[in-house]
């Protein structure tokens, strides 16, 4: 295409820019360039370039191109406001070509449309991004019976809206940051300015800004950078997809980290006993909540210790087992070729494999897997003489109790601990388990989450917080001052 004004105009005119953009992006199939000519001539009037997968085509057709053709688009002076700038940016042809090209490419991949207006010798970037979000849905991993059913989505703006809906407070802060050299992910540091201790906010801010990584595709990427101790099975941050849980923690003076593109929100600081609490505790009557909390605690100990105690008692300390039970267990062991430890290990590993397969397999094969799983872990294995019946019960009990804890990541730590204790119990008996438990306890009391002792309020003892640890007292008696003592203490540090 030859244009009469080509030589007078800036070199990018005549489609050089479009060509350069195409080659920079590797001529993707979704890159479109629509051209308008000056009526009755071959002279270029306007080129509209966009990535069709990122934009709302209807907006371009109905508003931008139509307006241009009706000559309303180009008239008047554009208003100057921040909002307008977000929607509409203009660059003159006179600016350096290289800078214009870079800006254009960046705008394209952000989902903007580029208008090259030859008439006015300007390039306009118009934000016509089409949000590709799923609707607000119930979180799959954290379902609830009573209480709100909304869950976070992958859109950080929607997520912050969900929080604002719950905390209508001017002190609610969302500090934006961009993390990820390649992914440029938006991250919000969220807190209530009047409640969260400054020292905590400062610490989180500094840890976030110290992160050097190429990409952040999920909040878990940040969790590894933010946690206090890398080599610990226990998480020192918790994550949730439930806005009500984040709101509850923010109201306790904690901080949250929201990451664009993922519904998982990180919350810190967190203590050991908070993993046994759930927002649902506060939606139920106090006595029921206390009962459920105890169930969770018992389940934790069951999930971690039952297989190891079973192995230790049956291999080293048969004196401890009541006689009738010992006879019954002994009868089950008759003809089983493997030692108890190996039996339990095989069954536990099989269970973990089946569970892992169940998480990721296509739904269509689900039934086949559950049938095979039931055979491997069930009566068939017992009847084949490979394992004893009691092992099936032990594995089933630990399997079920493992899911009782409300936070999935804490459930994962239980699995690690269970295997460690199983090995210790199988080789060193009850004494070994005791030593292991003491080591674990020592580790737990030495852990801190953003300056808060992990075992608080049990140790260091915080009497006032005990109302919400092993028991959940009715709301009127619960923390009249508002904040947990550990957070109060952090506030006083400031």
């Amino acid at each position: 295409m030859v244009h009469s004004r080509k030589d007078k105009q800036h070199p990018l005119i005549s489609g050089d820019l479009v060509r350069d953009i195409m080659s920079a992006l590797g001529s993707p199939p979704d890159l479109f360039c629509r051209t308008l000519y000056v009526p009755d001539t071959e002279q270029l009037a306007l080129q509209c370039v966009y990535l069709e997968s990122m934009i709302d085509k209807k907006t371009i057709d109905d508003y931008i191109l139509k307006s241009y053709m009706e000559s309303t688009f180009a008239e008047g002076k554009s208003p100057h406001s921040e909002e307008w700038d977000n929607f509409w940016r203009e660059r003159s042809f006179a600016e350096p070509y290289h800078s214009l090209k870079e800006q254009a490419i960046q705008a394209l991949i952000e989902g903007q449309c580029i208008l090259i207006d030859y008439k006015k010798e300007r390039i306009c970037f118009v934000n016509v991004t089409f949000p590709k979000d799923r609707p607000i849905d119930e979180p799959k991993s954290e379902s609830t019976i009573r209480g709100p059913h909304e869950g976070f989505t992958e859109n950080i703006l929607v997520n912050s809206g969900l929080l604002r809906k719950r905390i209508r407070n001017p002190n609610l802060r969302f500090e934006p940051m961009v993390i990820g050299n390649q992914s440029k992910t938006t991250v919000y540091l969220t807190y209530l300015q009047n409640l969260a201790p400054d020292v905590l906010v400062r610490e989180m801010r500094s840890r976030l800004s110290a992160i050097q990584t190429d990409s952040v595709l999920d909040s878990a990427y940040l969790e590894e950078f933010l946690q206090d101790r890398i080599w610990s099975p226990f998480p020192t941050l918790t994550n949730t997809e439930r806005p009500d849980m984040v709101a509850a923690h923010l109201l306790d003076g904690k901080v949250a980290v929201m990451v664009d593109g993922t519904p998982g929100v990180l919350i810190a600081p967190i203590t050991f006993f908070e993993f046994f609490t759930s927002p649902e505790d506060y939606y139920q009557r106090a006595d029921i909540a206390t009962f459920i909390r105890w169930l969770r605690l018992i389940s934790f100990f069951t999930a971690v210790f039952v297989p190891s105690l079973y192995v230790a008692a049956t291999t080293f300390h048969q004196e401890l087992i009541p006689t009738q039970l010992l006879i019954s267990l002994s009868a089950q062991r008759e003809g089983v070729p493997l030692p108890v430890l190996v039996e339990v290990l095989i069954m536990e590993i099989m269970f973990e494999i089946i569970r892992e397969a169940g998480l990721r397999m296509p739904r269509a094969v689900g039934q086949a897997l559950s049938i095979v799983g039931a055979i491997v872990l069930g009566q068939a294995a017992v009847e084949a003489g490979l394992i004893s019946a009691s092992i099936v019960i032990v594995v089933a009990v630990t399997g079920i109790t493992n899911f009782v804890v409300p936070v999935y990541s804490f459930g994962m730590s239980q699995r690690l601990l269970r295997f460690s204790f199983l090995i210790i119990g199988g080789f060193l008996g009850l004494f070994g388990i005791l030593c292991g438990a003491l080591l674990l306890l020592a580790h737990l009391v030495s852990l801190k989450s953003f300056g808060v002792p992990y075992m608080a309020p049990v140790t260091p003892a915080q009497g006032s917080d005990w109302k919400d640890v092993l028991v959940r007292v009715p709301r009127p008696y619960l923390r009249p001052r508002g904040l947990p003592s550990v957070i109060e203490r952090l506030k006083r540090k400031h």
Partner: protein
Amino acid sequence: MTLRHAASLLILLAAVPLLSSCWDKTEMNQLALVSMVGVDSDPDKGTIKVYYQIINPLSGSSTIKAPGGEQAPVYTYEMEAKSFGEIRSQIYKKLPRKLFIAHYKVLLVSEQTARQSIRDYANFIEMQPNGRSSIPMLVVEGPLEPVMKTFTPLEKVPSDSIRARLDQLIQNSLLSERNIRITDVIERMQQSRSIVLPILTRIDDARSAKSGEVASNIDAEQGSFIISGGAVFQNYRMTGRLNDEQMIWYHLLAGDKGLHVRLFEVEGKPVSLEFHLDQIKRKASWQSGRPVIRIFMDIELSTAYTSEYIPKSRNEVDKMEQEVSQAIERECYKLYELSREREWDLLGIKYLLRRKTPDHPNIEDAEKNAKVSIQVNARLKKMGSLQKPYDETGGGS
């Protein structure tokens, strides 16, 4: 910090060899679970015999089917050696599994061995790391072997049968008591006191070597054994016997508060009365160099099982209480006389005197000279639901 971690790891590793570990690991199906132990001796050969009754796990469990049909619930192994220590080495000539005696429930001693001495056996039990001394000890009348090789109906494992019977007797009668464990025997013997252990007596000689036959026989008593009477031990030796009647008064005087129903005679008529000890007090004093022991017993009576005669007036009740008190006193005196005659200390008088006057030069003589008075105060506390027994006159009131 790294140094500290390394040091703590080193200390931990150093402690590991101290822990129980693979070296003492035993799978459950490598254990021979002993349910009952029997001790006998052969004075002619100078040997001792120990019987181990081992539980067959496959017989007791209903879910695991035993191959080859019905199996015996227990197997009895007989070991003969010159000492208890030797038995530990000899046993694996016969036994294919590791002897595991931590769960045994009953210890039987033959009368012959009991009359010689059980001191060696007491020491042997205390010596064993996993041998429990908190289990009851019984004496078997006659040879031990038939009892050790007898199946019991209902409770398939004989030791369970004996333990369950002892428990029931303790709850429902004064024929047995709780303090008949090996540890009680050792304690009493070390304190120079007497102890009375229950005696197992075989009913007849007809017995079956098949548990199935025992289970299918309607006559539960055939070839079985019963608990009857008691063996008196002094200084680790059985020195005599008590019959069931004497056992009642022995347990009553020993402070046992169990219930017992017995036929008394009130105003010449037989009356079945339930009685139990409310409280007992023993007082020791010295009168002109002679010890005086006063035993006061408060006994509660009940006519719950009385069908012969129900007292209707205050006078009748008083009369009944008085006559029953006297009858109990009489029986207790009789037991005391027997105890003194045989030089036993069934009433614990010697022990009481030694506690009261630890510096006394000759307790033995003092006990022989002791004046013992037993005072029983029986009170009718509970009435049964029967006010007027059906009598021979029949019909209307």
